């Protein structure tokens, strides 16, 4: 038993649980590939979703965050006021970006033709609404920042 642990790196239950799980994964993947048209495109989407998130989306927003922090905070950390300013910028920015990410097909327009045809709606409102909502989020955040401004100055 101790020999197994040393060679494998964990107990036998660990191995059994993972093998069982991977067996179900293999079954589900093979079924989906068998049942769908263009199975190679399904694989591209599944693999691509990891690449798109881990190597594009996350580095993108993390880098933007670092740029904002470098621009606003002096090296070695900033005053409370500057830190608050950074946060009042990145919260609405993240919220607006999240809305774009989730509702991109409607906001960005790739779904427009099918959506209009199927729903019978005639006016595409989603891009306008996203812009208005984003502007409102930034404005709200700025207003709260203005209210906090005095207290934050005193705190430094």
């Amino acid at each position, binding site marked *: 038993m101790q020999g197994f642990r040393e060679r494998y790196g964990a107990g036998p239950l660990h191995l059994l649980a993972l093998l069982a799980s991977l067996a179900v994964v293999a079954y589900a993947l093979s079924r*989906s590939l068998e049942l769908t048209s263009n199975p190679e495109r399904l694989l591209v989407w599944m693999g691509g979703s990891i690449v798109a998130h881990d190597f594009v989306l996350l580095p993108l927003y993390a880098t933007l965050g670092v740029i904002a922090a470098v621009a606003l905070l002096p090296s070695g950390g900033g005053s409370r006021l500057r830190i608050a300013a950074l946060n009042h910028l990145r919260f609405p920015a993240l919220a607006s970006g999240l809305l774009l990410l989730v509702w991109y097909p409607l906001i960005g327009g790739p779904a427009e033709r099918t959506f209009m045809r199927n729903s019978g709606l005639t006016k595409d*409102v989603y891009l306008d609404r996203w812009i208005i909502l984003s502007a409102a989020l930034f404005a709200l955040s700025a207003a709260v920042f203005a209210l906090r401004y005095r207290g934050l100055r005193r705190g430094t």
Partner: protein
Amino acid sequence: MRLPDVGPFGEGFWRSPLRGPWLASVLSTVLLPLIAVCALTGFASHWAYDTDVGANAVWGGAAAGNGFDLYGFDWPASPPWLYAATQGLHVVTGVAAIPLLLAKLWTVIPKLFENPPLRSPAHALERLSLVFLVGGALFTFASGVINIQLWYPFGFSFVPAHYYGAIVMLAALLVHVGLKLPVMVAAFRQRGLTAPLREDLDHTEPEPGLPEFHTSAPHGAVAPTLTRRALLGGVGAASAGLALMTTGQVVGGPLADLAVLAPRGRGRGDGPNDFPVNKTFAAVNIPADKVGPDWRLLLHTPDERRAELTRDELLAMELVTAELPIACVEGWSTTQAWTGVRLSALARLAGVDEPRELDVRSMQPGGSLDRSTLNRGQVTHPDALLALRVNGADLSLDHGYPARIIVPALPGVKCTKWVGKLVFS
């Protein structure tokens, strides 16, 4: 084998003081119930399609490839709001989980660049399983969100891909939860369940990590610019905001105004037929003369035609009005007052006193919705109607004129429009 300490593989690369096992555990504690509800209601939707009945197979032809048909019993026809509730929950929990999933992935991203990348066969196997967990989760959520917005860029069939993608995710998730439970317990023991939420910025220290586990806690963190309370508050607000937006299109009424970006929050006006349409008449290519005065409803048994009715003859039968929601698989629903003839009355007219199944045929040419089979409970329910009117007016072409099916708790896509033929057996 250790990789060179460059870029993300280096120890000092990931410097946020907020990352670590406590944050990951808190996010998982909220995320898990959402995924559980989303998964259960997703399987409920598969059940609601009654894929083993008649022509309902959703993929791969009759009897083959309908997923885990372990249900064995028919989807019920009451309460009438059942499918609106389960499918509404499915879409609301799914959309609300997205910010939590993204935050969780942000928290554990250093683990993707663990160094050494493979410590043992056990570690290698676990990391392989994580590829399927992350890939399955991102794919399932992304495909669902894209599908409810009626964008079909996949080039493959959505239903089996979303269904089996979810199973890939869940199989990997189950073992992940089992393996990480000790880490979660240790993290909560070390830092307290909620104590870190009370720290202000001056007291926000980097997570120390756990001695007996490899975690995402940082080495050489920078000074904090955010409290854990603010980070989790922001994620929670984003999740709640998205939930509210999608709830608007499920519940309707005054809440529909909250569905500012959700696809189905909008009606088309105040008229009796102005509630949302899934697929307009123009989108399905039915020749106009087929829905004109020459339209006849054909009543069949599997072997022969038993009757042929004009719309006026149908309107002269005993009419029933029922307030019923129609709930779409995309997660929106709308309750209207439908008037029509009971399906059981039409069954008797076809000479079938105790119908077991009803195969409904639309005049819609092709497509997956041109045909659906109702189970015994659905055909015999007193509120199961061939609707001719809605809210006191004739159905509009977009809502299925001359006649459509409306049955309590039946998924909207199976409430067939532009009905041409009913086959009772």
